[in-house]
C-alpha cells in the first residue's frame, strides 16, 4: 500500500491517492490534498460539502452522489462544479478522506 506525506502526517492511500484509513484524516491533510487537486484554498462552502459527505459515509457507508448532495440542499450541481472544478464528486471525496465514489457498474 503506498504511503504519502502531507505536512508532517503520513497517510495510507490507494493507487489513485484516496485515503484507505479514514482515522488518518485531518483538516491539514484535507488542505494538502485540495492543493494537489489544484484548489487555491478550502472555504466554508467547501467544508460544508466535505463534512456532509463524511457524515453520509458514516451513516450509509456510501459516498454520496452529486444528485444526493443536490437533493440534500448542500450545494447545487453548478455550485459543486465551481467549488471542485473538473470532477466534484471524485475531488470532494478524495479531500474528505473517503473512497472513490463507485460510479455504479
Amino acid at each position: 500500500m503506498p504511503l504519502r506525506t502531507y505536512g508532517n502526517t503520513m497517510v495510507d492511500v490507494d493507487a489513485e491517492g484516496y485515503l484507505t484509513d479514514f482515522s488518518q484524516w485531518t483538516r491539514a491533510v484535507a488542505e494538502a490534498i485540495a492543493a494537489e487537486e489544484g484548489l487555491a484554498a478550502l472555504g466554508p462552502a467547501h467544508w460544508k460539502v466535505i463534512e456532509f459527505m463524511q457524515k453520509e459515509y458514516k451513516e450509509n457507508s456510501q459516498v454520496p452522489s452529486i444528485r444526493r448532495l443536490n437533493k440534500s440542499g448542500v450545494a447545487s450541481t453548478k455550485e459543486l462544479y465551481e467549488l471542485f472544478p473538473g470532477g466534484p464528486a471524485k475531488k470532494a471525496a478524495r479531500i474528505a478522506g473517503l473512497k472513490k465514489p463507485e460510479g455504479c457498474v
Partner: protein
Amino acid sequence: MRNLVICGAGTGGTVMASHLRKRLPREDWAVTVIDRDDEHYYQPGFLFIPFGFLKRKDIVKPKSTLLPRDVAFLIAEIDRIVPASNEVVLRDGRKIPYDYLIVATGAEIVPSETPGMEDGWRDTIFDFYTADGAEALAGKLKAFPGGTIVVHVNETPIKCPVAPLEFAFFCDACLRRHGKRDKVEIVYVTPLPGAFTKPVAAAALGALLEKKRIRMVADFNAERIDASARKIIGYDGREVPYDLLVTVPTNMGAEMIERSGMGDEFRFLPTDPRTLRSKKYENIFALGDATDVPASKAGSVVHFQSEILTENILRAIDGRPLEPAFDGHANCFIEMGRSKAILIDFNYDTEPLPGRFPFPLFGPLPLLKPSRLNHWGKLAFRWIYWRLLLRGKRIPFIPSRMKMTGKKLPAAVPGA
C-alpha cells in the same frame, strides 16, 4: 391464508412468482402480482430494433401468460405502499394486504431530469430504452443523411451499462456495411472517466472504441441540452454538438416508490446488498433495477438475485436468519457488430477479467474478447430468457455466485 404480494411483473417479479409459487404451499399462501400493464418486453432486444434486426413483435409477450398458474395478476396502477399497515394501495382505491412484499418495479428513463432534453424529443433526440423510442429511432436512422451521431449517457447508474457502447459499435458496423461510415462521425459521451467503471474492462473497451474511430468524451456531466442549436452543454462549460443525439436519460425507480416515501435520491429502494431485504422494513424485499445495491442493473443480476432472494424469503417466513449470499454477480454479452460479441462476468469485488467461461481452458466462451461464439450466445439468450429464466429454471453451468476459475488476474495492479 397469508399473502405474498409482488409489485411489478417484469423480469424480477415474474421470476420470483415462478420460484415462490413452487415453494409456498397453496393452501397457506396466496401469491399476488401487480403491474400497470400486460406487456413484458425482452429488454435486451431494444438494442436491435433501431438497426432493423428485430421488430417490436419479436420481443414482447403478455405478462399474464408468463406468470405461473395459481398466481393472482392484477393490472392496476399502484398508488403507494403503506408499510405501517402492510398494504399496497392502488390508484382505484383498492387495498391489497400483504404479509411479505417484494418490490420489483424496475427503473425507467426520465428525460425531464435534464433541462432541454424534452425540447428535441423524438425529433433530433432519441432513446432506445423503450419500445416506442427504439422504433422511432429505427425510422430516424434509416433516413439519416450523415453528420454527427452522439451516443450519450446522462447520469449513472443506468440499466444495462454496456448498452450504449453496443449501440455505438452497431452504428459503426451498420454504416460500414452500407459504405457510409465516412459520412458520419460517432461520438460517445459519458459521465464516467472511461468506457466502463472498472479498469481492465475500461481499457479493453476504450481500445475498441478507438479502433472503430468512435471519439470518446469522458467525465462529461450534462447541465442542459440546447435542442435548437443541437448541442449538449456540460457543467464544466464543454459543449458537444450533434445532428442526432441518442441518449440514455437519467434512470430512476418507479414514481410509486417516491410516493411511498421509501426511495433514495434516484427513487431506488435502500436494500441490503447481500440479503436483499429492505434496509428499513423486515417484511419487504427487493430485487433487480428497483434496488440501490451497487450491482449492474441487468437481467442476469436479477436472475442470480432471485435464487438467493427465494431462499431468504423462505428463511424469513420460518423465522430463521437470512443468508447474506448475494455477491453482486453480473454476466453480460456486449455486442460489437459484425457477428461478434464480448462476454464479461463480474461481481461486487471482482472486476471483469479476461479468461474463459464457464469452464477454465475449455470455455467455450472467451471473456473480455470479441468472438463469434459470444454473439451466438447473446442470440440464444432470448430463448433462455423466455423458457428458463422467467420460469425460475436453472441455467446450466451458470451458478448464482461468481466463480474465479477460468479468470486471469491482472499481472499487477497499476500503481500498487
